[in-house]
């Protein structure tokens, strides 16, 4: 075996044949995995493999038709996120911030299908300390849960649908769902649907706008989060002083775009 150059010093690295003698010496050769195709990557003493495209940059979610929701589901979710995050003097509503669009796009990706999670059976009911043990992906939870919500409304609200209710009635029903007290039919309980809706709505409201929610960084401006600025060295020692620069997102800032 040849001694290697150690790149930091330019000196040959320590190499003791005596120490190696005990080790079975096999000719060193490049292991060709060509027979098995480009399955695994072999990286030899060639320096750092700057493998461009090894990770994908996020893509800006574009406005447009629903990618997961049916029109009815979209309507329902918009009505819900508008109550979870209502328009008031602090911000626009969850709907106007794009939370429903965010949820729709998330559900048509790997998040919706739980592709990355452990989804092998057997599925057995567990203890609260064991986490979610259902085979319901977020996509299924929305599809079945929203239908159960619609049915529940028609059944208990004199045939009215959720979208027909007054803001107060909507809040009352959402509160009952939050407590798991609204009795839904089917596999998705009202409490599970509510907690997923709340989690995803908040994700949409606070995530980078590139994912379709938090339009115009509305939540960040409201709370004073500067987003992706990445360098605060000049403010570390400015104790108890307001940070005044406006937020920036992965896609930049609205006022960077050319006007007109």
């Amino acid at each position, binding site marked *: 075996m*040849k001694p290697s150059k150690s790149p930091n010093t330019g000196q040959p690295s320590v190499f003791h044949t005596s120490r190696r003698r005990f080790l079975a010496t096999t000719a060193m050769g490049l292991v060709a995995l060509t027979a098995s195709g480009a*399955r695994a990557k072999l990286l030899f*003493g060639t320096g750092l*493999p700057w493998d461009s495209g090894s990770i994908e*940059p996020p893509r800006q979610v574009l406005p447009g038709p629903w990618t997961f929701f049916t029109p009815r589901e979209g309507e329902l979710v918009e009505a819900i996120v508008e109550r979870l995050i209502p328009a008031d003097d602090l911000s626009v509503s969850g709907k106007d911030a794009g939370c429903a669009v965010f949820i729709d796009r998330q559900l048509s990706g790997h998040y919706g299908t739980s592709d990355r*999670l452990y989804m*092998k059976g057997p599925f057995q009911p567990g203890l609260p300390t064991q986490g979610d043990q259902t085979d319901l992906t977020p996509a299924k939870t929305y599809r079945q849960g929203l239908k159960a919500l619609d049915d529940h409304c028609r059944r208990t609200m004199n045939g009215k649908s959720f979208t027909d209710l007054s803001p107060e009635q909507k809040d009352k029903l959402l509160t009952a769902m939050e407590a798991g007290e609204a009795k839904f039919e089917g596999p998705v309980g009202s409490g599970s649907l509510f907690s997923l809706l*709340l989690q995803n709505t908040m994700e949409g409201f606070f995530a980078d706008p590139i994912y379709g929610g938090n339009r115009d960084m509305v939540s960040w401006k409201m709370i004073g989060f500067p987003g992706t600025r990445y360098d605060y*060295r000049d403010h570390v020692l400015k104790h108890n002083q307001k940070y005044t620069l406006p937020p920036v997102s992965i896609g930049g800032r609205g006022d960077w775009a050319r006007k007109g």
Partner: protein
Amino acid sequence: MARKLPHKDVVIVGLGWTGSIIANELCDEGLDVVALERGPWRDTATDFNIGYAADELRYNSRQELMLRPAQTTVTARNNAGQTALPMRQFGSFHPGNGVGGAGVHWAGITWRFSPADFRLRSHFTERYGAQAIPDDMTIQDWGLTYEDMEPYYDRFEYLAGVSGKAGNLNGQLQDGGNPFEGPRKREFPNPPMAQTYGPTLFAETAAKMGYKPFPIPSSLLSRTYTNPLGVTMGQCTFCGFCTNYGCANYSKASAQTTVLPVLMRKSNFELRTLCEVLKVNLDSTGKKATGVTYVDTSGEELEQTADLVILCAFMLDNVRLMLLSGIGKPYDASTGTGVVGRNFCYQMANQVVGFFDPAKYNFNNFIGGGATGMAIDELNNDNFDHGPLGFLGGGSTRCAPIGAEPISKRPTPPGTPAWGSGWKKAMRDSYLSNLSVGCEASSYANRGNFLDLDPTYTDRLGRPLMRITFDFPENDVKMSAYVTKKVGEIVRAMGAQQAVEYPRTGPWSTVPYQSTHVVGGTAMGADPSTSVVNPFLQSWDVPNVFTVGANVFPQNSGFNPTGTVGALAFRAADAIRSHYLKSPGPLVHA
């Protein structure tokens, strides 16, 4: 049948923190080293690109850099009477995946354990008498001393460029450092990081109360630094997207920023990514490993023979590979015999959240990083008299603003609604004016807490998942209640209108994130009847197998583990280089 590949001197399983350190050391010895890593290649410019590294949804909420449970997970239960069920998504801890391992997205708090930690049972017995240690508490000594570890702590700290202030230099206490730490031979390689308002207020208040605050030892760099391997890192910018994220500034020490630029250029090093090791192969005597079998992404099984097998696959997979390969006797909790899987421990994560008057306090919590902040150590380990208290152990207390990405970090006072205008106002008011002080505390081994193979659930390849049987022992719950109350006093003294105490209580839940400081399962020690590896991390049963990781801790200290894990990696490499290669075989005779 697995296809056989040409022989290598050394095969390293996993190229995270420890794998990179050992690989580099053994390459310097002239050995042919191959590392097998189950995840992809990752590097700063491509994977933690500054254009999109600061993405909370992708990296924190969806855990993009971490192990996907679809690949492998664990099952969990609180006691042997329950049926363990799979962690379908990771919650309580977040194992890493891919080159750099969890070291890519760690927080960077880099401690040395207390001298007493390494001889814990002896220490408690000497100070409080044997009866102070409960019968079911299976804590033990490590088989080495702090003095044995000192040179290797030093090497890891200089490799990583740790920023901090010594509290004890060669036995002389130093102002501004941790007065409880073991003696260091020299200062930290870099000065402490600058401090934002929150930790400054914490330190001032704690000092007035008689505590001795000091800067958290941090693997986020306070200045530009070139490490002994010649790799240069940049100054941390307090970007606030640190824990759970890769660093786009080359400021957080990881395999990528400290070792790989050198290791990857060595002609006697080879890395195979997207290759998951299935087991260590033993010869017919069962006392010698012949190499490992692994699978690539096509599903083909390959056999890599080697003279030395080093498991650096993070503690969970290290223990699982030992169990799957039949190395060491599995632990049987009902009889208390056997060793592999024994003494699985965790970390008691306690917290106090302070809500301050928004008109007067602005902490700008988004300015931060995983290891910025100030700490006190009076409440840790055996730094206070446990005689009258009825429990053992404690934790390191620190005010460490890690960032304030708003999907996950916008606490509201108890009683605040979770949605609607009332929520919005309360959330907005507390966003910049809340401040947390945490106490990361010890977790002591208990007879009923262990790891074994699950009888029901398998990974995508049909191999049994590892099963965790764990709950917080009464001792640790009492300790948590005590230290959290003390921390609450400090937060109130800082001026919080409300200090909400969250001492860790049982039962252990797999759902909320606590820490990725799972430890134990293949304890190191001087006695093979209670340990799996000797004090050089060499298997007692199969001496050409070493394992490096927190799996060798016999129990956990009130500190984050990686400073000690990194030091142990250097120590094992040194033992292999200076002793094992001269005379392959057991380094310690039992």
